[in-house]
C-alpha cells in the first residue's frame, strides 16, 4: 500500500515536472555561479547548498538547481522504465503464448532463444549497443532519441523473463478442462488463445511487468552512470551520481540526493509489485 502511494506520487511529480520547477525551482540549465565557492567548486551553503531557494541544493561547479534536475530525471527514468517494461511484456506475452500453446518446434526455437538471451553478458552488451547506435534520429532531440534507444535495448533483453513465465503458465492452462471444453465445442485457436488463455494469464503478467520496472530503473541509471545512457546536459539520476564521483568526499549531499531518489523509487516499485503479487496470487505469500 505504502509502495502504491509513493509510486503514484512519483508519477504525478514526473508528469508535473515543468510546472513544479517553475513554482519551486529554477530552469534545469540555468547556472548559478554565485552559489559556488570558487576555490573548491563546491556549493557555498551547508549540505550541498540546500536552502529555501534551492530545495535540494545546487550542483557543484555549475550551480544548477538539483531539485529541478531530479524532477526531470524522474521523467526520463520513469518513462524509460515503463516503456521498456511494456515492450518486454508485449514480446514476452506473444512469444511465451506461442511457445506454450503451439509446442513442438516453435516451442523449441523460442525456448532456445530465451535461454540464449538469458545467458548473455547483458549489461556489457547494452553498453556496447547503446554506444554504437546514433545519438539522435528523426525529429527527436538527443534526449528522447536516447530514451527510445534505451527502451529498445532494455526492453529487448527483458522479454525472456516474462516469456518464460507466460510459457510455463500456458503449458499448464492448456491441459485444463475449460480449454478442452472450449475446443470440443469447436472453438478456433484464436478464440482459445484470446478468450480462454489470455484472461487467465493477465494476473501473473501484470505482477511480473510491475516487478521488472524497478530492474529497468536500475539498468537505466547504471547506463547513465557509466556514461552511455541519457547524454548530458540532459538530467538523469545515474548521470548525476556519476558527476558526484568527483565530489562525494567533500560534497556528499550531491551523491545522496540522486542515490536516495533511485533507492526510494525502486523500493516503492518493489513493495508495490510484492503487494500486487500477494493480492493476485495468494499462494505465493
Amino acid at each position: 500500500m505504502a509502495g502504491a502511494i509513493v509510486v503514484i506520487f512519483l508519477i504525478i511529480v514526473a508528469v508535473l515536472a515543468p510546472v513544479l520547477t517553475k513554482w519551486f525551482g529554477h530552469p534545469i540549465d540555468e547556472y548559478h555561479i554565485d552559489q559556488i565557492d570558487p576555490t573548491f567548486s563546491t556549493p557555498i551553503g551547508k549540505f550541498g547548498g540546500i536552502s529555501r531557494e534551492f530545495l535540494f541544493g545546487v550542483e557543484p561547479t555549475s550551480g544548477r538547481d538539483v531539485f529541478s534536475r531530479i524532477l526531470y530525471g524522474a521523467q526520463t527514468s520513469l518513462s524509460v522504465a515503463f516503456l521498456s517494461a511494456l515492450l518486454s511484456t508485449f514480446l514476452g506475452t506473444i512469444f511465451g503464448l506461442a511457445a506454450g500453446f503451439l509446442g513442438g518446434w516453435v516451442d523449441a526455437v523460442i525456448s532456445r532463444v530465451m535461454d540464449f538471451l538469458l545467458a548473455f553478458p547483458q549489461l556489457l552488451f547494452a553498453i556496447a549497443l547503446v554506444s554504437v547506435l546514433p545519438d539522435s534520429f528523426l525529429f527527436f532531440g538527443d534526449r528522447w532519441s536516447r530514451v527510445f534507444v534505451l527502451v529498445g535495448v532494455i526492453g529487448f533483453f527483458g522479454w525472456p523473463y516474462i516469456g518464460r513465465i507466460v510459457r510455463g503458465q500456458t503449458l499448464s492452462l492448456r491441459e485444463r478442462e475449460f480449454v478442452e471444453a472450449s475446443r470440443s465445442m469447436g472453438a478456433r485457436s484464436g478464440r482459445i488463445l484470446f478468450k480462454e488463455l489470455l484472461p487467465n494469464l493477465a494476473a501473473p503478467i501484470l505482477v511480473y511487468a510491475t516487478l521488472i520496472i524497478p530492474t529497468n530503473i536500475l539498468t537505466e541509471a547504471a547506463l547513465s552512470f557509466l556514461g552511455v545512457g541519457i547524454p548530458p546536459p540532459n538530467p538523469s539520476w545515474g548521470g548525476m551520481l556519476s558527476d558526484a564521483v568527483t565530489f562525494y568526499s567533500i560534497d556528499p549531499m550531491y551523491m545522496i540526493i540522486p542515490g536516495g531518489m533511485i533507492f526510494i523509487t525502486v523500493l516503492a516499485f518493489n513493495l508495490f509489485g510484492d503487494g500486487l503479487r500477494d493480492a493476485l496470487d495468494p499462494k505465493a505469500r
Partner: protein
Amino acid sequence: MLAYLIRRLFNAVITLLVVTAVTFGIFFLVPKATGSDPALLYIGKTSDAASVEGIRIKMGLNDPIVVQYGKFLKGLVAGRDYANGPDVQHCPAPCLGYSFKTDQEVTPLLMGDLPVTLSLALGAAVLWLIIGISTGVISALRRGTILDRSVMGAALAGVSLPIYFTGLLTSAIFVYWLGWLPQGNYVPFTENPGEWFVQLLLPWITLAFLFAATYARLTRANMLETLGEDYVRTARAKGLRERTVIGKHALRSGLTPIVTIFGLDLGALLGGAVLTETVFNLRGLGYQALTAIRGNDLPIILGVTLIAATFIVLANLVVDLVYGFIDPRVRLA
C-alpha cells in the same frame, strides 16, 4: 551421464559461437549501416590515409564478413598473422584479436585483468553465500518475529539499492569520514596477501550486501515452503533432532534453487563486474570493457564479450551437473 555431458558441452559451444557471431555482427554491420569506416574505428580518428589502408589490409576488412568471422575463429584455436606485405604481426592462439589502437594483443591484456575480477567476484561470493543463506534460514525458522521482520526489511532495502550508490556511500563513510579503510588500490595476492585483503574488503562487503539481500529473501521463501512439506513433518514425527530435520532434510531441498541462481550470478560477475569495478576503481575485465567501449576499441570489446559469455555458459553447465548431485530427482533426465 556421458551422453548428457557431451550434449551439454556441444550446446555450450554452439551458444558461444552464436554470441561471438552476434557481437561480431553488431560491431561490423552497425558501423557499415551508419556509414563510418571500421578501419578508422580500429586505429583512431587522427591517423593518416596510408596507415588506415594498412590496417584495412592487415585486418582483412575488405573480405566479406563471413570470411572475417572465420579468420577470427581460426585465430582462437590456431593463432593468426596480421600481414601487410613484409609488415607482419603474429598473434598466437588463443588469439582474441589485436588492438591496433593501443598496439597490443588482446589475450595477454585481458589475462592480466582477470585476477582482479576473479578476486573481487570470488571473495564477495563467499561472503554473500554465508550471510545470505544463514540470515534466510534464521528468518524462516523465526518467522513473524521482530528479528525476521527487521532482517527482511533490510533485505528488501538491499535489493533496491544499486552498487553505484552504496559503493560511493560506503567509500564516503569508511574511507573519507572514518578513515578505517584505504582508498582502493588493487594489490596482487602474490605480491602481498595482507594488503590484497585490506584493499578488497570494502568492495567485497558492498557487493556482497546487495547479493546477500536477494539470497536471504530467496532462502527464506524456499525454507518456508519445504518446512511445510510432509516429509519434514514425518522426519519430526519419527523423533529426529530438530538440527537433523533442518540441516539434513529441509535445508537440502530448500537450497537447490539457490544453486541455480548462484551459478548464474557468479558467472555473470566473473565476466566483468562493470559497475563495481568502476565505482571502486578496480582495473578488472569490466573496467577494461568499459574503457574499450568508450574508446571504440572493437577487438577488446569482442574479447571481453567472449570471455564473459564463456563464464556464463560454463556456470550454467556446472550448475546443471551439480544439480544432479544435490537433487536426485533431476538425475539422468
